[in-house]
């Protein structure tokens, strides 16, 4: 527990550090690109631009994220720091086609 508190300032500091940004679009209820490679152990910012005329919900249990994106809107999602691995996500409103994965490495 003590260790955790000692780490706290660094964790907070890392939250202030500049984030690497990644862009992704939703078009015809699909993510483009559907696969994004990001650096592991570092916080990143994912900007999702919904170019469809209908709302979508970005949802990922693995990433612990859930965000409704209005038609035409850009949504920012802060992710990580992620351990190396595969993190699938879906568009909950069009689960059949809207599927993607973030690969942290």
């Amino acid at each position, binding site marked *: 527990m003590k260790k955790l508190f000692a780490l706290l300032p660094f*964790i907070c500091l890392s939250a202030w550090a500049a984030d690497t940004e990644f862009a992704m679009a939703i078009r015809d209820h699909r993510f483009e690109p559907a696969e994004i490679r990001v650096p592991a152990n570092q916080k990143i910012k994912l900007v999702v631009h919904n170019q469809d005329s209908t709302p979508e919900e970005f949802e990922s249990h693995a990433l612990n994220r859930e965000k409704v994106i209005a038609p035409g809107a850009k949504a920012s999602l*802060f992710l990580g720091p992620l351990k190396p691995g595969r993190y699938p996500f879906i568009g909950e409103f069009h689960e059949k086609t809207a599927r993607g994965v973030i690969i942290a490495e």
Partner: protein
Amino acid sequence: MLGSAIIVFRETLEAALIISIIAVATRTLRKRNTWLIGGISAGVCGSVLVALFTGKIAELAQGVGQELFNAGILGLAAAMLAWHNIWMARHGMQLARDAKQLGQEVTSGTREMSALAMVVGLAILREGSETALFLYGLLSGGEETLASVLGGGAIGFIFGSLAGYGLYAGILRVPARHFFAATSGLILLLAAAMASQAARFLVQADVLPSLASPLWNSSWLLDNASLTGRVLHTLIGYEAMPSGIQVAFYTATLVLILAGMRLVRIQPTSPATP
């Protein structure tokens, strides 16, 4: 049709589980049904408004409006549940006794009911606005006919409500002497679950650090995407891959409410709860 049935079922189920716990916990209060119906109606109207303004809400606070809004709703609902449990720890036994005599609970029951009706409204607001957006998307996307979307929605709604009613009927069968402990236990876990979800939205908004994400991974045992995983997520806040801060919020809420319940308890009338 199947798509709308599944999504509406999921969202209805989540709201229905919360409503049934509240309906059980307030079963002795006067005018309960009126309050519950009021909460449900307010929630439904609110959902449509939130769905209409989704884009505007999302743009607030440099693009994290939606997260702050959700965290606010969940935090408020958790606070109301906490207050209910602490209030019941003090007045519950007294209330039950008075109710048997001559409906003495009238005055105190009103404030109590209004707080819980609000939780019902907030629960519906969250699930309902998502459902409205989804159905609107299906219709305006021209992928399905109106009849198919509404038909699927109706099926999902009926099954979701039935599951909620099942939980309600199930808790009512708990023997009378365990009833108080059972309902306050369920409300306690519900409040902790909401606090943990609020923390998740605050991490998503980059307001709080995640402190380790995930802290553990139990999706091999029970995945959050499964039906059981979803039900337990709503009822007790189960997360297969929680962040450290969620666990901290969950634990802190449990400890604070339990401490509050213990502090206010009137000794002679206190029930022997563990």
